[in-house]
């Protein structure tokens, strides 16, 4: 069942493209955790990747932690293999963990529908925002709403998230 606003972040223990394994506890000291369901092949993810990198960069000094997770079925979508994840992270200069959920167990716990799909958790790891990055997948300059940035700003300011739930845009998660 999909996470609802207020739900706690399910734990995970997943390998990252840097050779390390990561759990939720690794980020316990961060006031905000952004978990983005992602992959290599989806054209919408590709359209958003530079923006993901930029948002991460813009909020890094505020101790916001970004994590990307790929749960897609590699047998049907070989572009989403771990080796390709390593290459993608290197090529795009990801400064955040890019984790591989090969068994899809973590995806079943979080229930993302598409990639990219954002789950923003507060310091207590309660879900405070879920959905899209902005409202213009195809043209960043045309975005009228910066949904993730707005949610981060409100969270870090101790304010209520005005729009806590938006429809994420992208390709469906490729379940086994």
């Amino acid at each position: 069942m999909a996470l609802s606003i207020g739900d706690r972040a399910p734990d995970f223990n997943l390998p990252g493209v840097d050779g390390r394994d990561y759990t939720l506890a690794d980020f316990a000291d961060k006031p905000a955790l952004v978990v983005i369901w992602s992959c290599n092949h989806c054209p919408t993810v590709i359209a958003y990747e530079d923006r993901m990198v930029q948002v991460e960069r813009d909020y890094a000094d505020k101790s916001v932690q970004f994590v990307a997770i790929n749960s897609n079925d590699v047998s049907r979508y070989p572009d989403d293999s771990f080796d390709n994840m390593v290459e993608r992270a290197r090529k795009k200069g990801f400064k955040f963990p890019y984790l591989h959920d090969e068994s899809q167990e973590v995806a079943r716990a979080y229930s993302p529908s598409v990639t990219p799909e954002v789950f923003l958790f507060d310091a207590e790891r309660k879900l405070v925002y879920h959905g899209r990055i902005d409202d213009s997948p195809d043209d960043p300059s045309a975005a009228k709403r910066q949904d993730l940035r707005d949610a981060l700003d409100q969270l870090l300011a101790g304010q209520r998230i005005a729009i806590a739930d938006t429809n994420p845009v992208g390709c469906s998660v490729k379940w086994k």
Partner: protein
Amino acid sequence: MSRSEDRRQPDPQVFDRARLLVEERIRRYLRRSPYQLFPDEVVVRHLVTRLARNVVEHGRQYCPCRKVTGARDADRPNICPCRTHHQEIARDDHCECRLFVSREFLERRSDKR
């Protein structure tokens, strides 16, 4: 347009014509099908944009969420609406890219809200 896009941008007039074509085809399909559009304008606009881009770049309205190989026979099943969309909607309540959804999907979403 995002710098992460590797493709050259289509001529705006050509793209607009493709977009209108895609929209008309979707409207025609919806008139004769039991399905609805995903209930979010941003999502639908994005999918239509991707479909139009495939029309301009590949000559066909290929599914925005499936790889276009360039082999016509291999890609033909993925011309929207995809050949497998009935099974996908029966299983998941939406097709692969989520352009078309079942009425049950819409009812569940409105119950949830």
